[in-house]
């Protein structure tokens, strides 16, 4: 994958970083993710994924967030 490829958080590999470009979830869910610090332009690192359709753990703004599989697949990042 080259520069500027846009993928969702599930597709991002463990220990890789991305920059948030878009969140394609419902209004409330989007706002909630925003308020937990995921806004366009934010850098995130994918720390680990749970097994199967388990949640993902992100490192963002120097703290760790856990996000369910469904929501994580609606958060799009640009690989950096």
């Amino acid at each position, binding site marked *: 994958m080259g520069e500027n490829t846009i993928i969702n958080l599930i597709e991002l590999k463990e220990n890789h970083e991305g920059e948030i470009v878009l969140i394609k979830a419902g209004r409330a869910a989007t706002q909630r993710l925003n*308020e937990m610090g995921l806004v366009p332009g934010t850098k995130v690192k994918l720390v680990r994924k749970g*097994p199967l*359709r388990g949640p993902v753990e992100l490192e963002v*703004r*120097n703290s760790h967030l*856990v996000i369910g599989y469904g929501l994580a697949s609606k958060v799009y990042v640009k690989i950096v």
Partner: protein
Amino acid sequence: MKKEIIIALAGNANVGKSVIFNQLTGLTQIIGNWPGKTVERAEGVLRFKGRTIKIVDLPGIYSLSAYSQEEIVSREFIAFEKPDVVINVVDASNLERNLFFTVQLLELHVPMVMALNQVDYALKKGIDIDVKKLEELLGIPVVETVATKGKGLQELINKVLEVVDSHKEVDVKRYDIKEEKVLKYRNEVSESVMKIYNILLKHNVDLINLFHPLWISLKLIEEDSDIVEKLKKEPNGEKAYEEIQKELEGLKAKTDNPLATLVTADRYDIASFIANQTVSEIHHRITWTDLIDNVALHKIWGYISMFIIVFISFYGIFKFGEYFSGVLEDFFDGFKPLVYNLNIPNMYKDFLWNGLAEGIISAITIVLPYIFPFYVFLSILENTGYLARIAFLMDEVMHKVGLHGKALIPVLMGFGCNVPAVLGTKILETDREIFIASFMSTLVPCSARIVIILGTIGVFMGPQYALAVFALDVLVVYIAAYFANKIAPGKPYDLIMELPGYRMPALKPTLKQIWFRIKDFLYVALPIIVVGSLVLEILKYSGIFKYVTYIMDPIVVKWLGLPSIVGIVLIFGILRKELTLIMLLTLSGTSHITQILTPRQMIVFGVVTMLYIPCIATIAALKRTIGWRKTWWVVFANIFIAILIGGILNRILTFV
């Protein structure tokens, strides 16, 4: 000078608000290391320098656009009830995210003081914060605190009093966003704020007297439904709202993102700016948390280690309890002859021994030795941060029953006591999730029921049988949740949770927490047990049991295969689950369960007691959380499940 002051503790989840509250008021709010423990506001009083300070502990929130029930509690209190001062408690080791909430408090322009808490933990992580600079940027007093050690709290209250005494009302009629020193939004947003503010002024909208104009204008840009409703209810509200809508169209045209995202992004920019100016990371260490989580959250090892932890603690609690239970029993057995050698009629001897002594003695010898190590284990689980890992590991499993992983945290708390478990389900987002999780909680055996199973099945048949009963319970809870989800269908919200770093449990608060729980047993359960035993003894002589057993025998004896008196103790068990076992023993005048129950009966009795009905206190908690109608549903479902599974077990076990 104001004599009575109300202050609120507000901030993100898991920053130490409740520890501060407990330190200041001497009360005992639930503390632990995972986000979302405090779910209702709690009040306490501090007397300081001749003044009465009412302190309000609030649920943790990340923003003032609250979603779940418990977050709404906080927002309502801060924004609508207007405490004299808000203490914004922040986690120094995680400043940027915490400042996002601080920014919103600044927008409200409420009188505030910041408690920069957990500076010890921040230092361990290699983080240093320039407090002077932070004060300067925020324009409010900042006090460094270590809540768990009580450090800095006196100074914190001094600052609070200073703020109260020097507070001046802001003039909402003359506001200009350009005068803000640190609250800098992108130009379009700032301009819209001023335009909306002018619209509100023009229409003489009362709302700006209630909340600061900046905050209202931003909320209207965000299209916060609650504030919009409030605006529309005003005399000129509809008109003002229309004009605002028109004003916002221009802003909307310029971006792909919802307007709320713009505002949030700007707030985060302000928070990052302040954090960058004040935080210096002396060195970035690989923390313990990262190392432990490599195992604890691993796809395979995570689950294996979870089972090992459960297994070790189970045997640890059992062995500890079994040993001390034996020691205490030998000790108390020596007293029986003392009573029976007294020169009084036999009936009184029965009253004295069976009614009074036996109850207390069984409670102390059977219950106490097990609940002590159990509460120690529970505290470790709560305070280290491991519970949040379980939420991560089990997220997908919980999705199958219409919940997310975090729902498991209150349910697991049910092992200690069902009451806080049921109340704790308020951290969930929707009524149906709260309903399913509360229902699950009631089927989780609380410490009392665990003791009954350990003290009978564990001691007389072997710990592996007790473990099997608990495994069966896990299955029952899961299947019950599955059906509850069918009755109240819906898609679960997805998990969004901050993962706390591991912490060494702070000694003093943890010991206090353990003592508080044991105290509940000594001061609440023991008296109930004594009174219950006395009433039982009196009823025994009154001959009323005949009628009760007559009604209950078809189920208790025929279907469950248990002795007739079990029916009576099950009724008393509704008061307090410990009573079932203790009364069974006193009624049969023995302390050895093997004399009354066969192994098969012991298992059926254990399982039925574990499931059959929530105790009175839990029913009250259910009523508060899900309302009477659903509470009755839960009660009857429990009774049904207990009778069903008890009867099936009775039949299956006859063949083995």
